C-alpha cells in the first residue's frame, strides 16, 4: 500500500529511512534471521560457558564485595561519629537515626496504628534550590553532562559496570538472574525469539522464574546480564532508587549488581502497612521492547504470620490479616500477547532516534500464561501455560482457591467467568489490587477490616467480570458453588478503540 500523502506532514530523516520497499524489508528480515540462526548456536555455547564461569566466580566476588562493604560501612560509621563529635551543629536533619544493626532486623514506626504526633514544630527549615537542567550524576561516560536532545537522553542512560549495593545486609532470600535469549515454542505451536530472565535452576523459559520472598525478609537478586545492559524493576515493590531498577533514576547494569530490598510487614487492621501480594519484575531498559521480548517474571510476597491470624495446614494467607487459601490450587494467570514484528528488533532499537514502530503494538498471538504456583516446574525451553486449572468448590473441605491475576500485556483486558451452563458466574471475589488488600477505611484509626474478612457479605467484592490493564494485579478468591467446568474468558481490546482484538478461554474444573 502506498504511503498516504498526508503522512509527509511530519518530515524527519527517520521517516525517509523507514519507507523502504516491502520486498526489500522482507529480504533484509530473512537475511537477518539467517544470520541470527547461524549465530544462535555459537551464542548459546558461549552463554553456557559464560554462565558456568560466572557461577563459579560469582560467589567469590560476592563474598569479597560483602567483606569490603562491611568494612566500608564500619569506616563510614566511625567517620560519621567522629565528625558529629567535632561538629555540634548538625549538617542535616537532627532526626535520630538508629544504630546500624548487624542482623536484618527492621525497626518499625510507633506501634500505635495512628501516626505519632508531638509538639508544634519549631524548626523553620529553608531551602530554595532550583531544579538544574543538567544531570548531577554520571551517564555511560561516567561524567556529568547535558542532554541536547531526546535521542541524546535515550541513548545515554546511565550505565555502571559494578554498582555497589549500599548498606548491604545478609539476605534471607536470594536469587541469581541472568538474561538469555532463545526461541520458545508457545502452546499454539508458534515459535518466537524471546529474551528471558533465568536462574541457574530455572533454565531459559517464559515467564522468568517465580520469586517468592516473605514480608520482613531481606531480598537479594544478583543480576549479571550477559546480553548488554539491563535492569530489573520490582514492579510494585518500593525500595530506594538504587534498588528500583530504572536507568534514568539510578543506573543500568553493565556487568553485575545485587538488588536489595525488604518487603514491609503487614499489621492487622492497618491499611498503611504490608506488602504481601502479587507483583512482577521486568527489565526497565528500552522497556516497551524488553518486556515484550519476555524479560519479566512473577513475584509473590507472602505475609508474616500474626499471632491472631494462625494458618491451617495446607493453607496460606493472602496477606497478614487476610483470608486463608488452599496452597495446592493457588494459581498465577498472566495474559500476554505477541507482535512478531517486535521480536525481530535489537536490544537498543529506536534509542538513537530511528523509527522502529514501537508506538505500534499489533499483536496477533494471545496467550493465557501461568498455572499452578505450587507445581510449576521451571525448565529449559518451557513456556508456562495452563490447559485447565483445578478449583475448590464451596464445601469440599478445603480453603478457597486463590487466583493471582497479573497483566503482563500492553492492551486493556477484560475477563469474564461463566458457569458450566454458559451463564455469567459471579464466583470471583476480589480481595487485593496491586499488592494491597481492599479494606474498609472509613473509621479514623479504627480497624480497617479487609473486605474479604468482613462478616457482612455485602462488603465482599464479588463479580463475574473484571477489567484490568497493563501491569495491574488482582488477587481473587474463587467460590464456585457446584462442581463442574467453569470457563474464564480473557479478551484483549484495542488500546485506542476498545474493540476486541483477541480472545482465549481457560477451563476451571471445580471439584
Amino acid at each position, binding site marked *: 500500500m502506498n504511503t498516504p*500523502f*498526508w*503522512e*509527509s*506532514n*511530519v*518530515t*524527519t*530523516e527517520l521517516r525517509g529511512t523507514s519507507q523502504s520497499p516491502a520486498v526489500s524489508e522482507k529480504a533484509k528480515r530473512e537475511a537477518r534471521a539467517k544470520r541470527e540462526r547461524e549465530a544462535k548456536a555459537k551464542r548459546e555455547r558461549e552463554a553456557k560457558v559464560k554462565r558456568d564461569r560466572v557461577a563459579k566466580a560469582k560467589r567469590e566476588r560476592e563474598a569479597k564485595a560483602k567483606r569490603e562493604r562491611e568494612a566500608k560501612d564500619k569506616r563510614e560509621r566511625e567517620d560519621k561519629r567522629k565528625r558529629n563529635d567535632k561538629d555540634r551543629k548538625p549538617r*542535616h*536533619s537532627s*532526626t535520630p537515626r*538508629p544504630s546500624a544493626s548487624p542482623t536484618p532486623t*527492621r525497626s518499625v*514506626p*510507633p506501634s500505635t496504628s495512628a*501516626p*505519632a*504526633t*508531638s509538639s508544634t*514544630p519549631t*524548626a523553620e*527549615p*529553608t531551602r530554595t*534550590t*532550583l531544579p538544574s537542567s543538567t*544531570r548531577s550524576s554520571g551517564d555511560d561516560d561516567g561524567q556529568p553532562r*547535558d542532554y541536547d*536532545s531526546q535521542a*541524546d537522553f*535515550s541513548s545515554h542512560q546511565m550505565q555502571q559496570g559494578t554498582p555497589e549495593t549500599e548498606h548491604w545486609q545478609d539476605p534471607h532470600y536470594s536469587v541469581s538472574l541472568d538474561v538469555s535469549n532463545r526461541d520458545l515454542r508457545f502452546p499454539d505451536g508458534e515459535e518466537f525469539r524471546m529474551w528471558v530472565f533465568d536462574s541457574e535452576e530455572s533454565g531459559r523459559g517464559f515467564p522468568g522464574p517465580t520469586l517468592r520472598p516473605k514480608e520482613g525478609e531481606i531480598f537479594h537478586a544478583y543480576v549479571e546480564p550477559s546480553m548488554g545492559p539491563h535492569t530489573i*524493576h520490582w*514492579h510494585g515493590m*518500593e*525500595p*530506594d532508587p538504587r534498588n528500583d531498577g*530504572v536507568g*534514568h*533514576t539510578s543506573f543500568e547494569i553493565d556487568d553485575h549488581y545485587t538488588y536489595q530490598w*525488604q518487603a*514491609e510487614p503487614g499489621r492487622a487492621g492497618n491499611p498503611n502497612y504490608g506488602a504481601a501480594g502479587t507483583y512482577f519484575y521486568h527489565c526497565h531498559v*528500552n*522497556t516497551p521492547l524488553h518486556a515484550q521480548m519476555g524479560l519479566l517474571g512473577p513475584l509473590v510476597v507472602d505475609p508474616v504470620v500474626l499471632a491472631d491470624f494462625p494458618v491451617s495446614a495446607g493453607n496460606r494467607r493472602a496477606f497478614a490479616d487476610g483470608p486463608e487459601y488452599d496452597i495446592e490450587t493457588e494459581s498465577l494467570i498472566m495474559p500476554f500477547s505477541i507482535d512478531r514484528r517486535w521480536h525481530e528488533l535489537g536490544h537498543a*532499537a*529506536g534509542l538513537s532516534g*530511528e523509527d522502529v514502530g514501537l*508506538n505500534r503494538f499489533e499483536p496477533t498471538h494471545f496467550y493465557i500464561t501461568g498455572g499452578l504456583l505450587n507445581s510449576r516446574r521451571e525448565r529449559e525451553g518451557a513456556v508456562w501455560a495452563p490447559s485447565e486449572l483445578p478449583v475448590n468448590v464451596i464445601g469440599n473441605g478445603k480453603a478457597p482457591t486463590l487466583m493471582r491475576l497479573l497483566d503482563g500485556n*500492553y492492551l*486493556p483486558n*477484560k475477563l469474564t467467568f461463566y458457569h458450566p451452563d454458559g451463564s455469567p458466574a459471579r464466583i470471583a471475589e476480589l480481595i487485593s489490587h496491586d499488592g*494491597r488488600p481492599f479494606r474498609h477505611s*472509613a473509621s479514623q*484509626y479504627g480497624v*480497617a477490616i479487609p473486605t474479604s474478612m468482613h462478616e457482612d457479605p455485602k462488603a465482599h467484592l464479588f*463479580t463475574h467480570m473484571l477489567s*484490568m*490493564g*497493563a501491569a*495491574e494485579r488482582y488477587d481473587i478468591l474463587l467460590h464456585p458453588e457446584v462442581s463442574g467446568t467453569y470457563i474464564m474468558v480473557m479478551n484483549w481490546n484495542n488500546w*485506542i478503540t476498545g474493540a476486541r482484538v483477541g480472545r482465549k478461554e481457560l477451563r476451571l474444573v471445580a471439584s
Partner: protein
Amino acid sequence: MSEKYPSPVERASVLQESSQEHLLNRAKVLKLGAATGFGVAVGLAARSAPAVASSSIRAPRAVPAAVEPIPGVLDLYINEGYTKMVDDSLVYQRGFGDRPSNLGDKNPSLRIVPKIFGRDGSVTESRSYPLDAVKPVAGTPLPAGPDPANPGQYFIRRNYWASYFPQRTIIAETGSKIRIRVFNRLAGTHELTFAQTGHGRVDLGTGPIAPGGEALLEFDAPYPGTYIYHDPTNAPVQRVMGLFGALVVLDPEDAWRVSPGQAGFERQWLWITHAICTTWTGIEAAGGTVDQDKYPAVPRYFMLNDRSGYEALGHSPDRANNLAAHEESLVSGYPRQIDIRDFGEDLTLGTIRAGQMVRLVNAGIAYHQIHFHGNHLWTVRRNNVEWPREFGKVDEDGHVALQQWEDVVELPPMDRKDCMIPMKRPPDATDKVWYARTEDWGYPMHCHAEMSQTAAGGLYPGGLVAHWELKAPLTEG
C-alpha cells in the same frame, strides 16, 4: 509580533521548492525555518495536500482579530499552528488560545495560560492558585518542620502552599459563573464543549461555530472536580488536533480539598495526558476530514502537560521549560507520616497529615495505565464521583469502586481520577538505607501501556513520563 502566513502564491512557490526535497530532515527544516521565517512549516503543510485542495481550503477569509475584552469574560481563539515535538519534528496542531494567531506564527497561541473565574465575577490569569497562597519554589512545598516522633519525616503545612497549574487550565471557584467567548479562526466548523458539567452530567457547549464566527458560552461552575473541555467535532479527532483543556472547580473557602469533606492535601497537581496521531493531523492540515474507519489512529507522540520524554522530566537544555515542568508536573515534597484513614487530620497546629493530590486527566485517545514507582497512590474519586470508603462494589464494566491503593491507575480516554500520593517513606527500603539518606530520592512515573513511552516510533523514554521526588533531609537554620 506574529509573522505573517504567506499568501497562496507564496505558498505555491514554497511548494515547488520543497517538492524536490521529499526527505527533508529535521535539521533542514529548522535551518530553512529560521531562514524563511517559518515558511517551511507552512510549505510542508501545503506540500502534503493537493494543490487544489490547498488553495480552496486555505483561501483568504475574514478571521476574527483580537477583540476588546469584556470584564468577567474569557476570550478563547481557535487557532492553528505547528508545535515542536520532543524529537524536534513540527506537527500541525489546533488549540484554544489566548490571542489570535496564524498558522505561520513562530509561537502560535494554541493553549491558554491558566485563567481563574472568581466568585466576584473576575477573570484572572495566574499559573498558581489560590491567588494569595505562597508559591512553592520549583514546585516543592517546604515542610513546617521535622516530625520528631517519626525520624526522617516532616510536618506538612496545612492550607498554605499554592499549586501551579499547566497551560490549558481553567479554574472556576464554586459560585462563579463561567463566561467564555469563542472565536473560530479556522476554515472548518468547530465548537467548545465542557463535558459532564451540566445537571445530570450532561455536556454544555457552544454548538457548532462557523468559520470566522464566534459564540458565547455561559454556565454556573459545576460541582467541585475536574472536567475536560474540548471540541467534540468528529470525536476524538479534534482532541488529537489539540482542541482540549481542563476545568478545575474548587471551593475557594476550602481550596485544599478536592471537594468539601473529601481528602485534604498539601498541594495539588493537574496532569493532562494527550496523544497525537500524525496521520490524522496530516489529513486535517491538508484540509481533509479524518475517516476514522479508513484511517485508525496510530498515536506517535504522547504527552503529559504538553511535554514528552526528557522535556517532561526537566532534563532539556531549556531551563525555563525545566523549571515549568518542575512547577507544574514533577511531583515533589518531603516525606511524612500519614494515615490514609484520615487525610484531614490536624493534630498539630497548622499542619496536616496528608500527601499531594494528583488529578489525572486523559484528554487523549489511548487507554493509559499510570504507574508510580516508590509509593502506591490512594485513589479517592473517578470522574468527580467519590469512591466509598466501605461497602464498595464492582461496577457493570468490571471496575472496583472503593477507595484503594494502586500502583497502576487505569485512565481510559476522557477519564479523570483524583489520587493521593502519600509521599511516605518508600516502604520496602531497608532501615539502613533510609536512615542514611542524604540525597533526593527520585522515582519514575510512566504509563505502562508501553507504546506510550515512545516518540516517533522509538526514543524510549520519550513519551508520557514524569518523575517524583522525595526531597533530601533539610539543613536546619
